[in-house]
């Protein structure tokens, strides 16, 4: 059995497939520090040129919303139909808008 009783920290991996795209979450891995997490992420997630840029973020540093709040957390947006273009009726004569 390995000596270390505590597991290495968990890192979430985000990859930008090519310039112009967002970094996208693609998985996670364990590594003792950020540099090694980056190297492991390269080996695990970009074996076929899937990325040009990698972010690794310690999973414990991510602040996430609670899925149980689904309703109340987002309901301020529910009654604001005027934020959508379809709320506005245009006369038939008006195009290109």
């Amino acid at each position, binding site marked *: *059995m*390995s*000596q*270390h009783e505590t*597991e*290495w920290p*968990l890192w979430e991996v985000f990859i930008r497939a090519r310039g112009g795209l967002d970094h996208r979450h*693609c*998985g*996670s*891995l*364990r*590594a*003792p*520090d950020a*540099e*090694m997490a980056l190297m492991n992420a390269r*080996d*695990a997630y970009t*074996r*076929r040129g899937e990325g040009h840029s990698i972010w690794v973020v310690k999973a414990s540093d991510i602040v*996430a919303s*609670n*899925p*149980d709040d689904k309703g109340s957390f987002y309901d301020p947006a529910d009654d604001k139909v005027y934020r959508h273009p379809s709320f506005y009726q245009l006369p038939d004569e008006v195009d290109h808008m």
Partner: protein
Amino acid sequence: MSNASSQSAEEARFQARIDAEDKIEPKDWMPEAYRRTLIRQISQHAHSEYVGMLPEGNWLTRAPTLRRKAALMAKIQDEAGHGLYLYSAAETLGASRDEMYRDLLSGKAKYSSIFNYPTLTWADIGAIGWLVDGAAITNQVPLCRCSFGPYARAMVRVCKEESFHQRQGFQIMLSLAHGEPEQKAMAQDALNRWWWPSIAMFGPPDGESKHSAQSMAWKIKRHSNDELRQRFVDMTVPQADFLGLRIPDDDLKFNADTGHYETGPIDWDDFWAVVNGEGQCNTDRLAARQKAHDEGAWVRDAATAYAAKRAARKAAERIAAE
């Protein structure tokens, strides 16, 4: 589906989400049995990828050409990667990586029994890619639509990578089947030994599969064992014909009414014997994993020590700068 009256309100809501094809994510509420089932299945799947490196590693140093060696190396690296994706997916459910690994090494956790058969010749590397990876792909494609998000996403990556594995294996079989009579005989021998274990990989027949009904209701599984097995047989028999090799089944025939091939009976006693530890390689496989774990301990310890040293140096620089 379970009896509606015995379901709690939460369970009913959960099932409604599943029925609506909503994906379940790690922090969502889920029944404990759903969590347990997934941890068992995903960790077994991870262990299979991980142990699956061993039969192929056996031929790495004896691959017939440098190109074949490089391709086999890439395939084995992929298997390690697939293991990693899957261990990570199981971790999102609260499973501990170290614990899963301990369960593999102690023999408590299972892995696919196909890897307890030996790879006796180079042709076995072809047969594994063609048949074992082919069967795995047949199993894994529907898992890309599994109700648990992280498992489904891991499967999308795995399936993309596996198709190279299967072609790599088929190409080896093709070269051997079109080679010297001895090479063709080697390919036939490999097919003879890997055919039955490959079609047994789909698991026991539908009537005897103990986890199937609930897994189907939860949309962890999308098709029954027998359906997937049939799909694999229908795809593979014409490929064997193309190779000019004979499937080792005297009862195999095409049913023109159903459009499906029908196989002879599968020897389930042999399957269960291998699952329960009586395969030719069960002991070797675990011993090899234990050895790798023990002999890799200094690498893990060195990485931990290096990270600690660098963190300490950074902290000292920060204090000096203040």
